[in-house]
């Protein structure tokens, strides 16, 4: 039995039946990482002791016939923007290369409390800024489906780890598409809950009003399992919502017949035709499942990218001010005075994309420009949110492509930041509106090398259960392999 390809439910059943131990599971996954990570480079840091200690505890529980927590023995990867006590947390930035946090992020704490084994920390774009994981301050991650291509980003390491069976599930962060887009490009399931659904405590901030923590899995059921564990009110995050968390896994089985699926025209412009074909086939399948597919308009979609890049850079310019070389992380030596130390530390510690966004954000918040940029962007954000609220008066869910293109070649877009920003064109709208979204595999491109295509499904605020139900029905009907 290949222990590295099991679903969470299979792991649970196998442990209870004593077909394998949690320790064997973790060791098998660590061995696979040992063999395959060299080519994929999904991980930045491994934490085998921590993973094994947890596994031994689970095995003790199995022997003592104690009840097993929901993620018992599940080997998971964590994006390196989530704080892990005693395990270095770099945000894939040179400026935090040696930073070891004294505390765990809430999502990490909840994963471990639910029995999961944390294998290590995954690569990403520096401070989650990027769409290809090439902006990592250390090295790019390769797409397991085609090693010459990017895995998407910024959570490319987590997506690649799950796609290559280097973890059963993973945590990522999504600010403008950073879970959904790499899920699409690597052919796995990735989900962002409603803003406030999962605590951000311990998620290193990029753009606080847009940042989400969310799961990657190989099946919708696995994603539902992980989301159920990490979701819910956290007193340490004032923006986390005090809304009850339903049992997502139980909700998967409910009927989808009669649900209304809105397909916004605006999301099908400038699309790679191959992607459009697959999404159409996916929609046909949904219709066959008894859902009512209908076109819908989302009038402010065109403004989303501009609006998003103003808000996220503004917040980033402030959030990243703390990396100044004074208290922790990298400090450039040899500066004559404080100013010089700040300048050199930040100049050498941050990569080009991070510096670009700090400069953009500083500019849009500057006195005299605030109204023209930041305030206006907030107004546009409200209009985009209204588009969604109005759409969900008419339909139950929205379906769009996740990414306009399949995985592109490493290096292909690095010299064209604007082109890179457009990779998020279908994902930023939900981020701005704060509604939940999931990307599920929707076949592969017709032409070689047959790259994964992702379908994005969006629902109204706190309607994750319905989102997962539709995704699950789609998966069970063979939607992941439409052709």
């Amino acid at each position, binding site marked *: 039995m290949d222990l590295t390809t099991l679903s969470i439910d299979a792991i649970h059943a196998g442990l209870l039946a004593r077909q394998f131990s949690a320790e064997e599971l973790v060791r098998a996954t660590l061995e696979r990482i040992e063999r395959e990570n060299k080519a994929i480079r999904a991980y930045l840091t491994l934490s085998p002791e921590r993973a094994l200690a947890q596994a031994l505890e689970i095995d003790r529980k199995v022997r003592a016939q104690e009840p097993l927590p929901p993620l018992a023995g599940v080997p998971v990867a964590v994006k390196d*923007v*989530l*704080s892990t006590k005693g395990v270095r*947390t770099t*945000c894939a930035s040179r400026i*935090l290369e040696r*930073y070891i*946090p*004294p*505390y765990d*992020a809430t999502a990490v704490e909840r994963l471990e409390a639910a029995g999961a084994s944390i294998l290590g920390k995954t690569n990403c774009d520096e401070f989650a800024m990027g769409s290809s994981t090439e902006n990592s301050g250390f090295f790019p991650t390769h797409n397991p489906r085609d090693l010459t291509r990017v895995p998407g980003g910024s959570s490319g390491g987590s997506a690649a780890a799950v796609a290559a069976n280097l973890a059963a599930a993973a945590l990522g962060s999504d600010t403008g598409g950073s879970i959904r887009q790499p899920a699409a490009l690597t052919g796995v399931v990735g989900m962002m809950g409603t803003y406030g659904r999962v605590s*951000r*405590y*311990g*998620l*290193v*901030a990029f*753009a*606080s*009003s847009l940042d989400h923590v969310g799961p990657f899995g190989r099946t919708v059921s696995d994603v539902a399992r992980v989301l159920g564990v990490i979701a819910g009110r956290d*007193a*340490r*995050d*004032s*923006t986390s919502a005090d809304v009850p968390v339903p049992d997502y896994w139980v909700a998967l089985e409910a009927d989808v017949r009669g649900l209304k699926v809105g397909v916004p025209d605006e999301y099908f412009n400038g699309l790679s035709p191959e992607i459009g074909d697959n999404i159409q086939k996916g929609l046909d399948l949904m219709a066959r499942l008894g859902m009512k597919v209908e076109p819908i308009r989302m009038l402010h979609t065109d403004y989303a990218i501009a609006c998003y890049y103003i808000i996220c850079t*503004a*917040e980033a*310019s*402030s959030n*990243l*001010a*703390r990396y*100044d070389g*004074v*208290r*922790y992380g990298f400090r450039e030596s040899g500066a004559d005075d*404080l100013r010089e130390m*700040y300048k050199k530390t930040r100049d050498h510690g941050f990569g080009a994309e991070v510096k670009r966004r700090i400069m953009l954000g*500083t500019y849009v*918040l*500057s*006195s005299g420009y*605030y109204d023209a940029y*930041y305030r206006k962007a907030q107004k546009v954000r409200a209009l985009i949110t209204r588009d969604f609220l109005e759409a969900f008066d008419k339909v139950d869910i929205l379906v769009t492509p996740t990414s306009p293109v399949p995985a592109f070649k490493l290096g292909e877009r690095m010299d064209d930041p604007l082109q890179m920003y457009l990779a998020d064109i279908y994902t930023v709208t939900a981020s701005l509106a704060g509604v939940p979204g999931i990307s599920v595999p929707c076949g592969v491109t017709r032409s070689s090398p047959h790259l994964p295509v992702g379908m994005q499904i969006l629902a109204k605020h706190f309607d994750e259960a319905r989102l997962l139900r539709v995704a699950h029905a789609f998966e069970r009907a063979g939607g992941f392999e439409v052709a």
Partner: protein
Amino acid sequence: MLSLTAISPEVLARYEAVIGLEVHVQLLTRSKIFCSCSTRFGDPPNSNTCPVCLGLPGALPVLNREAVTMAMKAALALNCAVHPRSRFARKNYFYPDLPKGYQISQYDEPLASAGWLDIEVAGKAKRIGVTRVHLEEDAGKSLHEGFPDSDRKSYIDLNRSGVPLIEIVSEPDLRTPEEAYDYLTRLKTLMLYLEVSNCNMEEGSLRCDANVSVRRAGRTAFGTKTEVKNLNSFKFLQKALAHEIERQIGVLEEGGEILQETRLWDSREQRTYGMRSKEFAHDYRYFPEPDLLPLVISEEWKEEVRRSMPELPEAKRARFVDQYGLGDYDAAQLTSSKALADYFEEAVRRAGEPKLSANWILSELSHLLKEAGKEIAESPVSPERLAELLALVAKGTLSGKMGKDILAEMFSTGRAASEIVAGKGFEQISDPEKIAAVGREIMAANPKQVEQYRGGKAALLGWFVGQVMKATGGRANPQLVQEILKKELGS
């Protein structure tokens, strides 16, 4: 520039100063504004810290409800409108003791605004507008001195990082350094009454900056203002303002222009000096704090706070006049601090005698406290003990003079009046027989004076009284002595 002394009073009189104060008050919450770390002053550096107030990556602020309650008390006492919805904002700037690179403050939607505080100018009330009261977090402290390598390094203590502050901004309604002093004094008294701050300027729990401009008397347009910082004592405030006003007048008289800038008061050199404007030409890039929800204050919460507010100085002063029959001046003195007013009321509750209590507290006790450099709260003589002493004085058991000596001894030894009286045979001699006997002895020893008295020199009575008091060690009841001597000498 004209030297300051060169500006004549006539020239000064042609100008009017316009002053507004920005006062930072540290709130007395037990924990910090956005985390549960202790706010205790004087603990070992960086011991009261956590990921939140250290600004570690990923940590998030959670608002302390008690800080809001205290800020609301201050705002309501300053007659401000407390807004049902206010918002936190980030004030962005780099400084080593500011761990996040921004301070969480309030900007365009403050907690409260449009209030006032009455001060007194030439015996009349003058209303000073309070523009706004808002909540914010304090920064840490940079330590540039006191370490072996202080010539090369600075140290940072983040215990203060995240301690709650309110900023109280006045309207530019103050016209003289004296008015500014009175405003700050009354503001401090109010905060102490509310028990929202200890307002200790040395520890930095009360800090004051001033916006100062001058204009020709009679004009209504404002002149260019400077911001004077570092006014961290009541004494400096007046001096610094007087200096800055004269400096500005000097510049204008010479035909110069006032530069809008930040100036620091240097108490050693007794002058303000401009800070390099480049260093302080900040664009703080305020924007709403996305990590905190808007602060929503319900009508119920506001009412609950209002109900929990103590009696404020003005109301207390009026009540002291009414209830205890005190004069305006005494009532104002006694209510100048809540601790003093409480002391007085406790003494009266036990001894009755409000007027006597007021006199003794404001003269004898205050004098002893001042000499010892102590505050009323630190008085070695408790109000209960003072009441006991005053009861003896009121009954006539002790003379005023004896009472004062005993109070001094109570103050220095911490013992009770009854103990001291018993131990020293301090009790007053009120037995007429005893007094008469002493009187007769003195008369026998001084026949010449007796003769002169009887010959019409009535003023000598005082001399005889003095002799009796001396002979009894001051313990004889002086009134009785006078009566008895009159009788004895007259016969």
